[in-house]
């Protein structure tokens, strides 16, 4: 029984609240919970950050290793993102092979990082066709109280922003040099509750909701990735509305992730 059944009465309550512009935790429909990003959380990683949105907690560690570039992109480095939704973080999560939910989180986060050109992959390349840095971004969820995608990307961005190339460990230099981050994508997730669309959903709101939508924005005013998930539908005007709101919240999220 992976998903705990949210009592119908709770669903009704959440929808009733939303109808009156209210939410379970007292927030307004467009209020985002408090956001923190604490870099340098894991000393063994080449870059790391612990991100929190309210009580949702996600840790990200970046490891850089020397490897081979892909044959079709000989001049580019390799970037991989993986998310572990470990059973410690929620009664919904079970041990075993990655659930589609975990795959979705890692792919949506990866898509934002990649599409925003956060890292210039050509700068990871050491010898074209032969040797390159491979950047492993591993996301570890610690406490899931809703809105994993936004939290995971904040953690990943925080970790990448503070990462260094482990030149000494790999014997290719005497000092470790910083990984250059060129862009700062952040994601902003919404859930439909009846006619209302609320930002930064709680777990129970995600379960009661009629569709989820995530919008990734960069600092230059571009949408770089989107994902609609769960059961439900959004009109093109709904999408335009959440894009606008994602830009508004994005600025603050970006500032927190960059630590400025």
């Amino acid at each position, binding site marked *: 029984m*992976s998903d705990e059944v949210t009592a119908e009465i709770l669903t009704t309550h959440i929808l009733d609240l939303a109808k009156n512009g209210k939410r379970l935790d007292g927030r307004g429909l467009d209020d985002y919970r408090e956001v923190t990003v604490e870099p340098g959380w894991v000393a063994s990683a080449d870059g790391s950050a612990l991100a929190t949105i309210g009580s949702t907690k996600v840790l990200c560690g970046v490891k850089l290793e020397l490897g081979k570039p892909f044959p079709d*992109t000989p001049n580019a480095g390799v970037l991989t993102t993986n998310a572990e939704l470990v059973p410690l973080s929620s009664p919904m999560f079970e041990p075993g092979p990655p659930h589609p939910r975990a795959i979705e989180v890692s*792919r949506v986060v990866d898509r934002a990082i990649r599409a925003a050109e956060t890292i210039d992959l050509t700068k990871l390349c050491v010898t074209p066709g032969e040797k390159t840095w491979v950047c492993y971004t591993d996301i570890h969820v610690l406490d899931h109280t809703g809105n994993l995608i936004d939290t995971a990307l904040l953690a990943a961005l925080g970790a990448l922003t503070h990462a260094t190339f482990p030149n000494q460990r790999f014997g290719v230099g005497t000092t470790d040099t910083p990984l250059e981050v060129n862009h700062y994508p952040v994601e902003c997730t919404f859930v439909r509750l009846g006619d209302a669309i609320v930002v930064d959903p709680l777990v129970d709101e995600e379960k009661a909701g009629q569709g989820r939508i995530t919008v990734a924005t960069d600092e230059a005013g571009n*949408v770089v*990735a*989107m994902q*609609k998930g769960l059961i439900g*539908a*959004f009109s093109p005007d709904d*999408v335009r509305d959440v894009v606008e709101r994602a830009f508004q919240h994005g600025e603050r999220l970006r500032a927190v992730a960059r630590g400025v």
Partner: protein
Amino acid sequence: MGNVGAKEVPTLLTPEGLRIDGRRLDELRALKVTAGPLHEADGSAFVEWGANKVMAAVYGPREVHPRHLQENNKAIVQCRYNMAAFSVDERKRPGLDRRSQEISKVIAEAFESVIFAEEYPRTSIDVYIEVLQANAGTRCAGIVAASVALADAGIPMVDLLPAVAVGKIAGRIVLDLKKEEDNFGEADLPMALVPQSGRLVLLQMEGHLNRAELSEALDLGVKGCRQIYDVMKQALRDRYAVRPEGHTGGAA
């Protein structure tokens, strides 16, 4: 997109504003939908769309496997989007990779948004999509095929689900990307529309679009979906239209 450090980038738009295959910006590739080509499945459809060939089959409502996924108040919708090893230039390792698993998830959720699942409690509606030949837009071709297959299986739904990808190439918003446009374009935005409500039940995006471009892309995609919708309905009419008296051939 996804081709940083690649060897060569082709020219995607001619000075006359035509695309590499001669299409206009808002023109779909040739689309052919055949309803009910498979015998064993409860419903099926075959889609040939540009150089894509995608088969879909629907089984159910039937018993849920694995059993613990069963829901007491509604049917569950399970989807398996799979690419054949030979469907792409470089052989793909058989089986569901992470991309296929993500696509399977969002497609299942899109269909569960339109199927009257509460009509069939404790059952599963299984949607199988096999990509046999791929040339960009396979998830959309899969949704179109699966949607017609669901109708062919007699599953009650709010509406059919036309789907298409909109993209940006050489700075312009275009409908229905083909492979080169997808690989070397600046954005890709697949969507599936419920024509009756005008709402989107699948929406993904990757690339760079500003607010105005995104807005234009949404409108163009909806327009494309409505054209695809007509082809889907015609496919079902071709299979199920009552033939005039004295007509011979076809199913009895």
